[in-house]
């Protein structure tokens, strides 16, 4: 399936695959219309009214993507990030040709290998062998290639004993391994990866990462759509930040991630225009070695007319990749009494005993009596770089010693 333009596009011939989104717009509709009772009035409305000229939309429609424009060339790994509802999945479905753009042009040249839904074509009643050929054909692999690589596929999946057993008797892990193995041997000319990298066990993830890196090295354009900012950071050469269907930034992964994380804070600060607020947050560094210290300084202000009797300043640390709350420090719990009115600043020192990666530092003022957040302050992102090598989730500052057992005296 080479050289398949979609939309109204046409792509010229050349050896390598590439991806091109040319001012792509995609429209969706809210709700359901599957009864004549709904359809006929909708048709009548369309016949007599014009769509909203500003947005080009009928009632009940919305733009899932607006004017998205990017290119991915061979050897580039392109990461797409953004909050939920930004349009990442829509781009994914346009890339895999499941959707067509409303306007604009998506040109994807070359056989698309998607490390997503690797078991979608499996039929439970068919054997592993039959499913390899079926799934391979669905993924666009010529039958002679499947036959040639059949043993390799089965070997890689590690299920040779069960290849003539219906896949409904496979464990879900075996199914996933077989599906991944087929996809991995597809010899794609364009690779698309999504959250698939986040599922499966650790060895499956490692396998997937290794395969993606290998393909980037082979000059295959790769598109990664993920919430895992650290995965984007470590895999990608280029990135795009999306929000509500619009491109916010195109650039290096670090730049886009920085904007994304700053953006998270920018909005929170807007809420803080009340009687209690945190005006600024300063970090003494933007990057720190794993196990190192960071000083956070917060400028707070509490107006005298508030009814609040007992408030505390809190600093939270989250993992950017997962959003998991790692640590929440409360000023009162730590034995600090902040003024009940006026402007003051609070300094917090944190030791980051965490693996390398991206972290979010959040600030807030907490009402200790009612147990609720009074205001959310600014947010910063922090990069933790690798220090002493270790694996796992907590840096425990290990030290090692050896004592040689001396032979017993005679």
């Amino acid at each position, binding site marked *: 399936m080479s050289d398949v333009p979609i939309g109204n596009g046409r792509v010229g011939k050349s050896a390598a695959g590439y991806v091109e989104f040319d001012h792509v717009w995609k429209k969706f509709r809210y709700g359901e219309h599957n009864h004549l009772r709904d359809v006929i009035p909708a048709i009548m409305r369309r016949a007599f009214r014009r769509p909203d000229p500003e947005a080009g939309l009928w009632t009940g429609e919305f733009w899932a993507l607006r004017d998205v424009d990017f290119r991915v060339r061979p050897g580039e790994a392109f990461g797409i990030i953004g909050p939920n509802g930004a349009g990442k999945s829509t781009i994914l479905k346009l890339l895999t040709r499941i959707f067509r753009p409303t*306007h604009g042009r998506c040109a994807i040249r070359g056989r698309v290998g998607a490390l997503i839904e690797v078991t979608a074509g499996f039929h439970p009643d068919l054997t592993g062998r039959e499913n390899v050929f079926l799934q391979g054909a669905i993924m666009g692999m010529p039958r002679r290639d499947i036959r040639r690589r059949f043993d390799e596929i089965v070997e890689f999946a590690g299920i040779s004993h069960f290849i003539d057993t219906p896949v409904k008797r496979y464990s879900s892990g075996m199914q996933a391994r077989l599906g991944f193995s087929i996809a991995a041997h597809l010899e794609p000319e364009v690779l698309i990866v999504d959250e698939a990298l986040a599922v499966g066990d650790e060895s499956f993830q490692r396998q997937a990462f290794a395969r993606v890196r290998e393909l980037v090295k082979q000059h295959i354009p790769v598109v990664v759509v993920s919430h895992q900012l650290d995965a984007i950071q470590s895999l990608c050469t280029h990135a795009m*930040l999306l929000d509500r269907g619009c491109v916010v930034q195109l650039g290096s992964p670090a730049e886009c991630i920085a904007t994304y994380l700053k953006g998270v804070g920018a909005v929170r600060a807007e809420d803080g225009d009340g009687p209690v607020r945190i005006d600024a947050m300063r970090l003494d560094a933007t990057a720190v070695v794993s196990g190192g210290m960071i000083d956070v300084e917060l400028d707070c202000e509490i107006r005298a007319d508030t009814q609040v009797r007992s408030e505390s300043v809190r600093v939270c640390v989250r993992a950017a990749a997962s959003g998991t709350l790692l640590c929440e420090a409360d000023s009162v719990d730590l034995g600090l009494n902040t003024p009940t009115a006026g402007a003051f600043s609070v300094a917090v020192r944190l030791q980051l005993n965490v693996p390398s990666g991206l972290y979010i530092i959040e600030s807030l003022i907490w009402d200790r009596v009612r147990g609720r957040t009074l205001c959310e302050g600014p947010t910063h992102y922090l990069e933790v770089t690798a220090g002493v090598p270790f694996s796992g989730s907590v840096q425990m500052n290990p030290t090692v010693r050896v004592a040689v057992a001396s032979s017993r005296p005679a």
Partner: protein
Amino acid sequence: MLTSQADTAVPAPDVSKGASVMDDLREIVGDFVRSRELLSELTMRDLRIRYKQSMIGVAWALLTPLVIVMSGLLVRWAFASLAGQPVDGAVIAGIAIKSIGWAFFVGALAFGTSSLTQNLTLVTKVYFPRELLPLAAIVTQIVDSAIGVLLLAVMLPLLGIAPAWSLLWVPLLALTLVLLTTSLTLLLACANVFFRDARHLVQVIMSFGIFFTPVFFDAAALGPRGARLVMLNPLAPVLEGLRFAIVNGHNLARPLLDARGVELWSPWPMYYAMLLGAVGIVGSALVFHRAEFSFAEYV
């Protein structure tokens, strides 16, 4: 959430101009040529699944048309005892031929219409030309019917039917039957994604369509006006044509009159069915192709 260009976005472009019909046709043919292997894989899958976990397996391919033939014979026997016409080999052969055609139509329609909704995970998650799902159902049904045709080929000489030159019409009529069935299946499969009403329509066709199609009876039995009316059903001239070409050895390009001068066969309804099949396949492929990109958004 983020401060983005959302508020200062470029205004939406004008309503897009659709691709031309020729572009679409080129795409359909291109897709089809590229996906031959996938079509055969999907057909193999359908064939394997159809007879897996079934006690008599492939025998079902014979049993279904056999039951239709038996019920047809019962109906004809009842007519015969009323009207005093004998039920001879020619009558049995005629019913058997038309029954296999009808069984193909009904089977293809049933499997083809549900093919998209039964493969939802595929449709929403992986790209391939979606035409292949209903087409695979039809090819599966062709293979299935071929078993019945082989049995018929063995039976016909036993019923006293000798081969004639008019058998040359059979491939053309079979093609027309496949085209008509495919057109209707593509449209209904497509409609079934958006409106589940399509499934009920297929149920009605499967149960009652046989009364509006000359399978158990001959079109001429309805009288000249009735025959003309029933021939509007494009399956009628196809099935009747198959019977006249095989059983009567009649050259279908010429009309056939009985001893009293009543017209038994006229070629015009057959030409109409052929034309409808040719126009139908192009039209339904276009409709399907235009709609297939919204399948994943609707289901």
